[in-house]
């Protein structure tokens, strides 16, 4: 680990010595929009060379008796909207405009442009122009006008809103985020239609500006959290952010940890519920998942279905998840420790049958376990890459055929197949993909240490894990809250899920300004 740190530091230093990658790409200020159309066209051609998808439509603009050009990117802009609301109007419906022929068009006359679109902005510099056109707007240049006008005609290819595949739910909503930030904001607004839902927009990335929106409830969210998040986002110096995962990796507290320190979700209802608890939600444009911060460990064990099923059922599921998480990380390790060191703890009849299975296997338990685990991980990864029907076949072929054949061939023992497959099942129970992957990875060092030190090793691994969990932070807030530091009042929604009418306060772990979430809807548990 020391070595790893050194290597990373070395590369960091090198990258600092060479000028930071983004500063060189920062576009020089290209100046203001000229009043001559010709000059403007030349400037545009200079900015966007080799851009065949850029459309420049010239026409005669009658109110000012001058030539005009509408510029947009084919594909990013909605053609229908440009034809019907912009071009048609500008060309034919422009008689009524209250501007004298040959008069000047200025800021004041902006609303008088005969364009039937809601959102029009004026543009004075080519920087703004570049940003606007790259975001799918169409920009109008008129000869003799020292300004340009950007019309909201965005219409890039966009996917329909569908169920999130990675976070499927039975009883929750069947809407998932898509890749357009405006739409994602709208999805959250549908859940929290309150004026207290504030949206702070930031632009990050020097080559390609990525729009980040921080959503929070002004009267609930602790301002320190917001400030910290803003500080981290604004201090970013990157080329471009393509994905929420990239963003999370750049701003997380401990980049060396195996564990995810932010929740990323594709579900608007999960995001809304977290915002309502007082957390921040960062929407990254072009990414279909959003980032929730600060993340507590409990959130990784909460599924959205927990709140729509009856509370004893949800509690059972919650406990099952914690148990499964433990199994997924430690079961192969415990198995190895038991058969390599502490066979005394295995019940007699079991040890006799394990002995029979093991006698046929030529490898030590660790190798045996690694063979099975790696096979399983390969199957899992192959299942993701392949199209759904084939993926299933691979799962069946791998799970049943390879497992059975491996046992018969004497490569692995029967019980190891049982252990590995139950571990695999356990690792898929966690509702959060990032956490499940982390747990899956933790399993390997645990196996290794178990094969060297037995149960002692497992205890050491467990203690190291606990120590790490305790010291980990998310957005400078303790990650293991409410378990460590203890916030007993928040335990209503950690290991158990108490009835909703008992959860009248927001979690203390997030330090929300407004504590009360609901009144006592039931007094003494009686139905009023």
């Amino acid at each position: 680990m020391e070595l790893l740190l050194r290597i990373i530091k070395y590369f960091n230093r090198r990258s600092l010595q060479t000028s930071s990658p983004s500063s060189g790409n920062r576009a020089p200020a290209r100046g203001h929009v000229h009043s001559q159309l010709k000059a403007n066209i030349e400037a545009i051609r200079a900015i966007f060379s080799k851009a065949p998808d850029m459309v420049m439509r010239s026409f005669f603009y009658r109110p000012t008796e001058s030539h005009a050009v509408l510029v947009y990117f084919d594909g990013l802009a909605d053609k229908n909207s440009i034809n019907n609301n912009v071009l048609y109007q500008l060309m034919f419906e422009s008689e009524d405009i209250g501007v004298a022929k040959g008069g000047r068009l200025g800021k004041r006359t902006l609303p008088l442009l005969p364009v039937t679109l809601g959102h029009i902005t004026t543009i004075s510099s080519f920087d703004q122009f570049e940003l606007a056109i790259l975001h799918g707007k169409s920009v109008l240049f008129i000869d003799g006008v020292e300004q340009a006008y950007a019309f909201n005609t965005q219409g890039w290819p966009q996917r329909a809103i569908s169920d999130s595949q990675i976070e499927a739910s039975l009883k929750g909503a069947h809407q998932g985020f898509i890749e357009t930030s405006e739409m994602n904001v709208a999805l959250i607004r549908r859940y929290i239609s309150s004026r207290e839902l504030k949206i702070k927009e930031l632009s990050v990335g020097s080559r390609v500006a990525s729009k980040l929106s921080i959503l929070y409830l002004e009267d609930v969210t602790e301002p320190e959290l917001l400030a910290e998040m803003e500080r981290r986002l604004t201090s970013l110096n990157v080329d471009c952010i393509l994905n929420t995962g990239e963003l999370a990796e750049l701003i997380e507290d401990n980049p060396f940890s195996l564990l995810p320190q932010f929740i990323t979700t594709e579900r608007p209802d999960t995001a809304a519920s977290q915002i309502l608890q007082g957390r921040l939600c960062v929407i990254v444009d072009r990414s279909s998942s959003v980032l929730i911060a600060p993340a507590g460990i409990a959130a990784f064990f909460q599924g959205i279905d927990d709140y729509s099923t009856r509370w004893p059922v949800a509690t059972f599921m919650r406990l099952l998840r914690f148990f499964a998480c433990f199994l997924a990380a430690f079961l192969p390790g415990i198995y190895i420790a038991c058969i390599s060191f502490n066979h005394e703890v295995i019940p007699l009849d079991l040890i006799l049958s394990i002995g029979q299975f093991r006698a046929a296997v030529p490898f030590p338990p660790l190798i045996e376990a690694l063979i099975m685990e790696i096979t399983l991980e390969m199957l899992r990864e192959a299942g993701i890459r392949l199209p759904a029907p084939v993926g299933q076949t691979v799962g069946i072929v791998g799970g049943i055929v390879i497992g059975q054949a491996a046992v018969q061939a004497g490569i692995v023992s029967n019980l190891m197949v049982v252990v590995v497959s139950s571990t695999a099942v356990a690792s898929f129970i966690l509702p959060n993909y990032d956490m499940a992957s982390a747990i899956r990875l933790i399993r390997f060092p645990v196996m290794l240490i178990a094969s060297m030190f037995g149960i002692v090793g497992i205890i050491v691994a467990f203690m190291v894990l606990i120590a790490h969990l305790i010291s980990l932070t998310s957005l400078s807030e303790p990650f293991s809250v409410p378990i460590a530091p203890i916030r007993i009042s928040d335990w209503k929604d950690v290991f158990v899920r108490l009835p909703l009418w008992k959860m009248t306060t927001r979690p203390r772990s997030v330090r929300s300004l407004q504590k009360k979430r609901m009144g006592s809807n039931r007094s003494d548990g009686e139905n009023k």
Partner: protein
Amino acid sequence: MRKKQFCCMTVAVCLLSLLLSGCKDRLDLENITLVLMVGIDLDEDNNLVLYSSSPVFSKEAKSKNETSKVTATTIREARGELEARVSALISIGKLQNVLIGKRVLRHKGWVQLLDVLYRDSKAKTNARLIAVDGPVEPVMYFAPDDKRRLSLHIAKLVDTAHERNLVEKSTLFEFHRLLFDKSITPYMTELRLSNSEIVLPGTALLDNEGIYRTSINLEENELLQIIQDEKLADLSLTLVLPDVKHEKSVFETRAISFYVTDVKRKVSVGYAGGKFIFDIDLDLPIHLTERLFAYNVDKNATRLEAMIDKQLEQQMGKLIAKLQKAKVDPTGLGLFARAYQYAAYKKVSDGWEKDAFAKADVRIRVDTEIKDYGEMR
């Protein structure tokens, strides 16, 4: 910097853990010969003979068990000898039974042989101690076709028989307690190989030095467990009531069987004239399960109860007399004497079963109550 510190700490903890004592004793399961049964006996020349029985895991082996026999001075020394014979390294972590020949039990100091089983933290102190009536060797090599491997069969047999109160059971752990408690004498399950069948004839009773004194049979053992107030599962007794009219037949028609569903015992201890006096009151609710003679229980329950009481009292009296004669006290009455008559007990504590219990006056009063007489009148 905190992160770096954490990483350093993690590395340090990992390195330090290499020094832990748990690291060197790695022993994979396939390299272990699990000794499930140990036999201890003396041959004709009074040499100590040790047997070990362990499962064989390999599919190529025809027999599922391997049994070895060595002569050695101690059990630990025998391990070396055995490891030179059996297929892998010996582990006694899953030891089930320790069979001890009666020949061994008759010699003073045999208890010291068990020392290694107590001292070695990896040995299993839950192993059952079993006295073998006759030589141990045929039992160790006995491999019945219709039973599972013998070590497990014997373990199960002892457990279930004990569950039905037919034999007493002593694990190594319990035996240690019985041996060192001056006010109770140890006992262990007795086992015999008769007509190619493993039989548990009863319980072997030992004195406070572990020397074999006498044995009690299954019925006596049931009564003993009532007196001990250690009834486990269903305790079923069958009595012949001499006061019932006997119709001449080859069959005994005066027999009655019942479950003792509960034992409520009251013991009071007195000391008078250099003798301990024990008054044991036993309240036994019973369920009749079998009655071979005509009797109207509905109307005359009290008379039947009285007959049963009398019969039980007689049999228990006989049992106590037998114990007193053999100078053993597995009943645990000594514990009452120590608790309630300490001054008197202290004088005789070193030879409780010889000096006090053997002379004590034990009065047993049984009060049965028929709670249920079955589906027929």
